[in-house]
C-alpha cells in the first residue's frame, strides 16, 4: 500500500511537471481560458437562438460539464498517448512497479484542470445565462460535478486502452468527446433522440450525472437524484474496470510479443 502511495505521488509529480511546462501564463491567459469560455459560449448562443433563455440555461449547464468532460476524456487518453509519443511506454511496461497508481497520479492534473474549466464557465457565463439558478443549488451540485467528471475520466482511460496499439488515440478520444455533446444531452435533452441512440446515451458516463446536476440546480434534493448518481457511479466504475483489464491485457500482449515500440 505504501508503494502504491509512492507511485501515485510520483505520477502526480510527473503530471504536474508536464503541465507546468505546457501551461505558461501566455498559454493559460491567451489560449486555455478564452478557448474554454468561448467554446461554451458558442454552443450556448446556438441554444439561445433556437429556444431563448430557457434553452440557453439548459445549454449552459450542459456545456459547463461538457467542457470538463471533453477535457477529461481527451486528457486521460492523452496520458497514455503521451507515454507513447515520448517513447517512455516501453520503460513503464518493463518496470516491475505497478503502473495503475502511477497512471492514476498522472491523470490527476487533467482531472483538476477539468474542474477548473467548470469554474471558468460558471464565473464568466453563469451571470448571463444562469438566470433562476440559486447560488445554494449551484454549490449543492459541486459533489455531483466531481463524481460525474471522475466517471467521464474512466471513459477517457478506456479510449486510451482501446487505442493503445494504434496511432489513432487523439482522433478517437476527440470523436468520443464531441459525440458526447449529442448523446449525453448537452444542448438539448437526449430524450428527443431516437430510442436506439438514447440507449447509447444511457450507457455513457455523464448522461445520468448531468440529469442529476440539472435536477439539483432546479432545487431537487440529493435523495431525489440518488438513483441517477448511483447509475452514474456504476457506469464510471464499469468503464474504469474494463479500461484497467483491457490496458493490462494490452500490456501483457506487448510484453509477450515485444512489439511495444510499434505502437
Amino acid at each position, binding site marked *: 500500500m505504501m508503494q502504491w502511495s509512492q507511485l501515485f505521488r510520483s505520477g502526480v509529480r510527473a503530471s504536474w511537471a508536464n503541465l507546468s511546462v505546457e501551461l505558461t501564463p501566455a498559454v493559460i491567459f491567451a489560449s486555455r481560458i478564452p478557448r474554454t469560455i468561448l467554446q461554451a459560449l458558442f454552443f450556448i448562443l*446556438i441554444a439561445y437562438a433556437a*429556444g431563448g433563455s430557457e434553452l440557453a440555461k439548459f445549454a449552459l449547464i450542459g456545456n459547463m460539464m461538457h467542457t470538463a468532460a471533453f477535457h477529461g476524456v481527451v486528457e486521460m487518453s492523452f496520458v497514455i498517448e503521451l507515454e507513447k509519443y515520448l517513447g517512455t511506454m516501453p520503460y513503464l511496461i518493463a518496470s516491475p512497479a505497478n503502473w495503475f497508481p502511477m497512471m492514476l497520479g498522472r491523470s490527476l492534473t487533467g482531472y483538476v484542470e477539468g474542474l477548473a474549466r467548470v469554474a471558468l464557465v460558471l464565473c464568466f457565463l453563469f451571470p448571463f445565462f444562469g438566470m433562476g439558478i440559486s447560488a445554494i443549488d449551484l454549490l449543492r451540485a459541486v459533489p455531483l460535478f466531481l463524481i460525474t467528471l471522475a466517471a467521464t475520466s474512466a471513459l477517457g482511460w478506456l479510449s486510451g486502452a482501446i487505442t493503445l496499439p494504434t496511432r*489513432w488515440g487523439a482522433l478517437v478520444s476527440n470523436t468520443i468527446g464531441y459525440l458526447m455533446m449529442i448523446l449525453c444531452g448537452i444542448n*438539448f435533452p437526449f430524450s428527443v433522440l431516437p430510442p436506439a441512440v438514447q440507449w447509447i446515451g444511457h450507457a455513457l458516463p455523464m448522461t445520468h450525472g448531468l440529469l442529476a446536476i440539472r435536477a439539483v440546480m432546479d432545487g431537487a434534493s440529493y435523495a431525489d437524484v440518488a438513483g441517477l448518481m448511483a447509475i452514474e457511479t456504476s457506469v464510471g466504475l464499469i468503464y474504469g474496470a474494463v479500461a484497467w483489464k483491457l490496458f493490462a491485457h494490452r500490456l501483457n500482449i506487448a510484453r509477450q510479443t515485444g512489439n511495444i515500440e510499434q505502437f
Partner: protein
Amino acid sequence: MISNLPGLLRVTAASFKMQAKERATNQFFIGTLLITPVIFTILSVGTYIYGGRANFGLYAVIGAGMMGVWNANLWTSGRIVEGERRGGTLSMLVAAPTPFPVVLVGKSLSNAAASLISMAVTFATGLIVFRLPLDIANPFAFIVSLLLTLAAMTSFGLVLGAFFVLTRNAGAFIEVTNYPIFILSGLMFPLTILPLWLRPLSAALAPMWGNLALGTAAGLVAGNPWLIDLYLIGLSLVYLMIARPLFVRIEHRVRRDGSLEVF
C-alpha cells in the same frame, strides 16, 4: 527568384500535391473533414428542431459546413507552418530561392479544395439524419459564393501564415481563434443576437461574408448574393495586400537576424 508564371504555377502545383499526400494520412484532417462536420450538424440542427425553429435547419447546415471549411482550410494551414518547423524544413523553405508564400499558397489551396468535402458532409448529414429539405434557391450563385469564400479564407490564411512563421504556438493560436470567429461570423445563429458594438469586427471577417453569401444564394436571407460576392472579392484583395508586404518584412527579418530557429 522565380520571375515567370509557369515556374510559379509549377511550384504551386507541386506544393498542392505534396500537401494532398500529407493530408491523406493526417488524423486532424480526417476529423475536421469527416467527423466534426457530422457532429456539429446534428448538434446544431437538433438544437433548432428542439427549440421549435426547424426552419433554421438549412442555415445551421450551411454554418456547420462553413465551420468545417474554416477548420480544414485555415486551422490546418496554420499547421502547415508548424509542421514544416517541426519537420525541420521551414528554414530551408524560407532560404530557398522560391518565395515561401508561393509554397504556402499551393498548400493552402490544396487544403481549401479538400475543405469542400466538409460542406458536402454537412449537407449529406442534414439530408440523411433530419430529412431536411435542402433546397438552394440559386445553385449557381451558391457554388460561386462557396468558391469565393474559399479564396477569401485562403487569403486570410496567408495573413495569419505570415505571423505563424514567428511563433511556435501557431496551433494554440488557431485553436483559440476558432470560436471567436465562429461567434463573430454568426455561422450557426443570426448575428442580431450579438451586441451592436461587435458588428464592425464581424464585417472584417471572410467567414461572415461567406456565410451571408451562401445564405442569400440559398434563399435563407434576403439580398443579392452577387453583391456580397463582390465584397468577398474585395476582402480577398485586401487580405492579399496585407499578406504580401507582411511576408516580405517577416522573411527579411528572419533572414537578416538568422533567427528563424529561435522562434
